[in-house]
């Protein structure tokens, strides 16, 4: 059970899938891990209030839409997401450095909340991948412009899955989904069993060598709650990284999703990532 000060309970999966949106009167409290009932009840009451205020007890779609927009502006719970424009990433890895600084990630090259992969697809069809500036090239091979078919950089981070296997397997509920769609680890209760690390298909987690608890990207939860951007987004010189509220029509993320063909990583695993990629190459896993 998350026992941090963060009001994180109802599963993000439940929320994002709830077609009634977050203000419907009919919204029954979502199934939440024990201990989340109070939060849910509070949310339910809030929802009720919003509904009454907007005068839409059985409001039509239009009314509901208006109500939703105003509700978000009135400080309603957002649903955070992340966008990566693969074509814009120049592989400068300033994001990686910023993340390590911001979040106390150990400096050694074995612990990352985010990293950038460089793909080189060769004329002969072979693929070379490296984590930029971290792991050695897979082949000591001279790459010339001639034998390169295409090349691109792919920033990676925790996908804040709406259906997160890491949350499912954690035996003590130390890893949990917040209502705003971020998956967090409570390092006060994590027992360090590392089951979540095994369960994450994206290699997004590591065991912090000092706290001996699991750690991973939080979208810089401490920053976004203050209205700031995640550190990596802030430093990215090309805006390859985007952050925003998936429920808000005005957020850059929503615009990004509207304007691009979007893909997520390993969709076949049904983890429902909330990190969206544009121009993602099929070679990326």
């Amino acid at each position: 059970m998350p026992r941090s000060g963060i009001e994180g309970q109802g599963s993000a999966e439940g929320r994002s899938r709830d077609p009634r949106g977050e203000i419907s009167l009919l919204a029954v409290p979502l199934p939440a891990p024990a201990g989340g009932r109070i939060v849910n009840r509070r949310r339910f009451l809030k929802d009720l209030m919003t509904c009454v205020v907007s005068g839409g007890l059985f409001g039509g779609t239009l009314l509901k839409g208006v109500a939703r927009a105003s509700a978000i502006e009135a400080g309603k719970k957002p649903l955070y997401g992340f966008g990566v424009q693969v074509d814009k990433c120049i592989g400068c890895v300033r994001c990686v450095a910023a993340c390590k600084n911001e979040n106390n990630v150990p400096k050694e090259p074995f612990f990352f909340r985010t990293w950038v992969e460089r793909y080189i697809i060769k004329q002969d069809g072979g693929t070379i991948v490296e984590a930029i500036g971290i792991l050695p090239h897979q082949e000591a091979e001279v790459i010339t412009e001639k034998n390169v078919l295409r090349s691109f950089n792919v920033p990676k981070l925790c996908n804040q899955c709406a259906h997160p296997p890491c949350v499912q397997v954690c035996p003590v509920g130390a890893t949990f989904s917040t209502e705003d769609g971020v998956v967090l680890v409570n390092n006060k209760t994590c027992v360090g069993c590392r089951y979540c690390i095994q369960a994450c298909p994206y290699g997004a987690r590591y065991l912090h060598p000092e706290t001996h608890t699991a750690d991973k990207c939080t979208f810089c939860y401490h920053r976004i709650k203050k209205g700031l951007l995640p550190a990596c987004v802030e430093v990215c010189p090309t805006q390859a990284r985007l952050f925003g509220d998936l429920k808000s029509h005005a957020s850059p993320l929503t615009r990004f999703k509207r304007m691009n063909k979007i893909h997520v990583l390993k969709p076949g695993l049904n983890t429902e990532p909330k990190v969206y990629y544009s121009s993602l190459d099929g070679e990326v896993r």
Partner: protein
Amino acid sequence: MTQKLYELLPQIGGYIYPNEIEIHWGLLIVVYPYVTGIVAGAFILASLVKVFNVKEVEPLYRLSLLTALAFLLVAPLPLLSHLGHPLRSYEMFLTPQTSSAMAMFGFVYAWYLMVVLLVEIWFVYRKDLIIWAEEEKPPMRWIHRALSLFSRDVSEKALEFDAKALKFITIIGIPSAFLLHGYVGFIFGSIKANPWWSSVLMPIVFLFSAIVSGVAIVIFLYMIIIPLLGKTIDMECLDKAASFLFYAVIVDFSLELLDFIHRIYESEESIKILSELVMNKLFLSLVIMQVLLGMLVPLGIMVIIKVFDFKDELRKLLYFVTVILIQIGIFSTRWNVVIGGQMFSKSFRGLTTYKMDITGLEGLLYSLALLILPFVILAILLKILPAWGKSGEEALES
């Protein structure tokens, strides 16, 4: 710790996610399923006597129960020792996450220990404990009296009740033993992120390999302890137990073969990296130790024993070699599942390496100690609760 990771860097082949260099579940987690497997297997052997009335293996009955108990007592230790915060492990009882397979460990364990094994052993030994306590001097007398929970009733009716209770517990016990180890298989089999683990067959393969290892270790112990006690090995019992072992190995082998063929035939995205894993990193432990030494050779020996009419002495020797090979094979199986499953990248583009420590909690010496501990516990258990000899006197002699 990070120093060790630097040493691994040059050994990475291909591309792995940067967080994947460290192998998170090491030797301790290899020991864990190995030990629980023996518990489940030994218990199922014991059930043969009670539920299926296989009279020939009666001499193994008590030994298998005590073996199961000795190993069960050790089973949580490797798990606890590998936690980053062992002192917080009680959280798994207080606030278990019901969706987590691992959270159920404590409950499955407690059920098996308290409801099945201890109760069964108590009913098995109750009458003897009372008789022993009558005839002995302190302090053994006190121990046995206390262990009998101060019951004194050895009347026909009471003994009849014991027998009925035993039958009942064994009947619950079999599914519980299945649960105990099938569940361990599920911990791995349910991880969809890992194609080496993720398989519905995993719990069943675990179960049968558990039966194999449990039966083999009881035979092994029987063949060592009986001569030490100056008694003679009951060849009829040995043959019967060995033939159970034979069938269990065949089922286990077929299941693993099925899994193998299925993977190759389906040939999913991960097949390339998995075959690289098997051919490069696991060749010795999988192809040689697990399949060849741990399965085919023992199967061959057992077939030969069945076909030819060997003398007792030679048969004993062959059985002994077989059960040792089988233990090596099953330990390799656990190794290949646990360590093998972490040596390839989930990007399916590269392999990493596992470097075993010698000292420390994750080290070889500690794991060896954990593997020896059940035998020490068993020796003590056998002192207090002799496994052979019906009456108190006979037991005292031994």
